[in-house]
C-alpha cells in the first residue's frame, strides 16, 4: 500500500508542477499589457513620468527580467507563500485578496455539494425500490441535471428575490453593515447565502439521485443479491448490502465534484454578485491581473489535487477490493 501512495504522491506532485507552470504561462500569453492598463487608469499623459511609472511598476511586478527568470522567481516566491501583488486591487497582496474571498466560496460550495450528495443519494436509493417515487424522482432529476447553474440562479433570484422579495439578490452581506462577529451580521450573511446555495444544491441534487438510483438497482439485481434472496435473507439485509456497495462509486464522484465545481460556482457567484473566488476570477480576467489570476488558479489547482487525493485515500479505505488489489491478495 505504501508503494501505491508513494506513486500517487509522485503523480500528484508532477501534476502540480505542470499546473503551476501552465498557470504561469497562461496570463502572459493573454493579449494586453497590465502595466499599460494601470497607467491609463492613472491617466498619466506626460511621456517622461509615464516612463518612470512604467519602470517602477515593471520592477514591482517583476516584469523587468527575462521570462525564464520570472518563472524561477515565481517558483521561489511561491514557496515563500508570496503570490505577488494584485494589479486590480493594488497594492493589496494576492494572498490577502484570495484569502478574503475564499471563505465565501467554501461556505457556498462545501454545504451545497455535501448536502446535495447526502440528500441525492438517500432520494435515489429510495427511488430504486419505490415505483411511485421513481416515477417522480427520475424525470425531475433529469430536468435538474440538465438545468445550467446560472439559469436556475437567475430563476431563483427572480422568483424569491424580485417577485416574493424573501431574499436579497446580490452581495455577500448588506452594504450597510461592516463585517464583524455579531448576530445581525451573521443573520444577514445567511440571508444572502440562501439563494446562491440553493441554486448550486438543487442542480447537483438531480445528478446524485439519478446515479444512486441506477447503482442501487444494479446492485439489487446482482448475483449476490439473488443468492441472498434464494437463501431467504430479509429484504432489509439485501438492501443494506446493495446501498453500501452502490455508494462506493458515489464517493469518488463526490471527491471529483468537490474539485471541479468551482467552475459552476463561478457563474453562480457572478449572478448573485457573491464576493467569492468566482467573482474574483472574473475581475482578475477583465482587469488582466496576472498575479491575482495565477493566485486564484493556484488555489483551484490545489483544491482539485487535494480532493482527488482524498478520493483515492477514502476509496481505498472503504472498498476492500481496491485495498486488497494493492496488497496483493492471497489465492
Amino acid at each position, binding site marked *: 500500500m505504501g508503494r501505491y501512495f508513494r506513486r500517487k504522491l509522485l503523480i500528484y506532485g508532477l501534476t502540480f508542477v505542470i499546473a503551476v507552470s501552465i498557470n504561469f504561462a497562461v496570463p502572459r500569453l493573454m493579449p494586453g499589457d497590465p502595466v499599460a492598463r494601470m497607467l491609463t487608469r492613472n491617466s498619466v499623459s506626460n511621456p517622461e513620468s509615464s516612463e518612470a511609472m512604467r519602470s517602477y511598476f515593471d520592477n514591482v511586478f517583476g516584469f523587468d527580467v527575462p521570462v525564464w527568470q520570472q518563472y524561477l522567481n515565481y517558483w521561489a516566491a511561491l514557496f515563500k507563500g508570496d503570490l505577488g501583488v494584485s494589479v486590480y486591487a493594488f497594492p493589496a497582496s494576492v494572498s490577502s485578496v484570495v484569502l478574503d474571498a475564499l471563505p465565501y466560496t467554501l461556505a457556498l460550495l462545501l454545504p451545497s455539494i455535501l448536502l446535495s450528495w447526502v440528500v441525492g443519494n438517500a432520494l435515489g436509493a429510495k427511488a430504486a425500490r419505490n415505483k411511485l417515487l421513481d416515477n417522480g424522482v427520475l424525470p425531475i432529476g433529469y430536468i435538474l441535471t440538465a438545468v445550467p447553474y446560472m439559469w436556475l440562479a437567475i430563476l431563483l433570484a427572480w422568483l424569491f428575490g424580485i417577485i416574493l422579495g424573501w431574499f436579497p439578490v446580490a452581495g455577500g452581506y448588506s452594504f450597510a453593515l461592516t463585517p464583524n462577529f455579531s448576530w445581525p451580521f451573521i443573520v444577514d450573511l445567511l440571508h444572502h447565502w440562501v439563494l446562491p446555495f440553493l441554486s448550486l444544491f438543487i442542480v447537483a441534487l438531480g445528478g446524485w439521485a439519478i446515479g444512486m438510483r441506477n447503482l442501487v438497482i444494479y446492485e439489487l439485481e446482482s448475483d449476490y443479491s439473488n*443468492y441472498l*434472496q434464494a437463501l*431467504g435473507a430479509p429484504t432489509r439485509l439485501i438492501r443494506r*448490502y446493495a446501498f453500501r456497495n452502490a455508494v*462506493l462509486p458515489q464517493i469518488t464522484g463526490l471527491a471529483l465534484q468537490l474539485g471541479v465545481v468551482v467552475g459552476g460556482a463561478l457563474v453562480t457567484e457572478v449572478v448573485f454578485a457573491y464576493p467569492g473566488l468566482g467573482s474574483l476570477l472574473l475581475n482578475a480576467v477583465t482587469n488582466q491581473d496576472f498575479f491575482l489570476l495565477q493566485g486564484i488558479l493556484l488555489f483551484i489547482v490545489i483544491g482539485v489535487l487535494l480532493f482527488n487525493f482524498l478520493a483515492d485515500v477514502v476509496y481505498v479505505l472503504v*472498498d476492500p477490493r481496491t485495498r*486488497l488489489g494493492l496488497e496483493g491478495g492471497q*489465492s
Partner: protein
Amino acid sequence: MALQVEDLRVHYRTTKGDVHALDGVSFSLEDGEIVGLAGESGCGKTTLGKSLIRLDGRMRHVGGSAVLDGDELPIGDDRAMNARRWKEVSIIPQYSMSALNPTRKIGKMTAELLRARGKSYRSLKGELVRRLELVGLSEKVLDNYPIELSGGMKQRVVMVLSTLLDPSLLIADEVTSALDVTNQKAVAETLVKFRDMGFVKSMIVVTHDLSLVYQIADTIMVMYAGRIVEKSPAETIIKAPKHPYTKALIGALPEVGLEYGDERLKSIPGKPPHLLEPPTGCRFRDRCPLASEECFQEPPKVVVDEGHEVACWKAEV
C-alpha cells in the same frame, strides 16, 4: 418421499406473451436420491430448479404443486417461501463465483445472514469450520473477502454455505459449468459426499453435461421444451435410452477409446421450439428422425421398466 412435483407450470412474462418454460412437469424424488436434470439450453432445467426455491421477477407460477416432506411449497408466494428457503430447500447457484457480497468478509456475511434467519452464528461456527475443512478450505477463509479466493474456492465456500442448515432438498444449478475438468470432478464428488454425510437429503443436479451427472446421479431426467421426456436410473439412460431425444443427446457424446479422426461428432439438427406458443403434440417432432402421423397427438407416458418412464409414441415396452 422427499419431493413430489405434480403438473408444475411456470411461465415467463414477456411483452410478447407468456413463455411456457415449464409446461406440466411431474416427478418425484426419494430421500437420499440424487437426480440429474439434463437437456439443451432453453429446455427449462434452470427454471425448474429456480421454481422450487425462488421465482424471479418475470416468472409466474401458473399451476401445479410441489410437496416437500409432506408440506406443500408455496411456490408462487415469495414471502411464505422465505421460511422454507435455506432450511428446507437450498440452492447452489450457477453464478457461485459472484454469489458473495464483494465488500464483506465471508465470515461476517455468513454471520449476518444467519442472524437475519434467526440462527446463532456462534453455535454454528464449529460446524461451518468443520465443513469448510471437509472441502479443503481452512478457517482463515472466513476472514477473507471473496476477491481473495480463487474461483474454485469461492464455489466450495458457496457449497458449504448453501448446505449449512442441512436442507432436505438441494438444487445444484450448473455447478460445474465454470470449472476446469479436475475441479468439476472434485465438485461432483463433494456433492455426493454431502449427501452421504447427511448434509442434504436429496438433490437435483441441473446440468447439460450428461457424462458428469452420470457419475454421481442415481436417476437422470431429460427435459425437452419445458417437459420431462424421459426419466430412468442413470445407468439405463446411458446404456438403453428410449426417447429419440435422449438417444440423440447420448449419440452426441464422444466415447472414450474411440478414434474420431476427421469424423465429426454427431449433433442434433435444428433447435428446440420457441415456448411462446409451444407446438401441440410431441415437441421434439420437428427434429425427430422417427416422427410420424401419431406424433401430432400428445405422446403417452410409457413405463418401460421399473422406474423408467418415457413420453414417446415410439417407445417400445
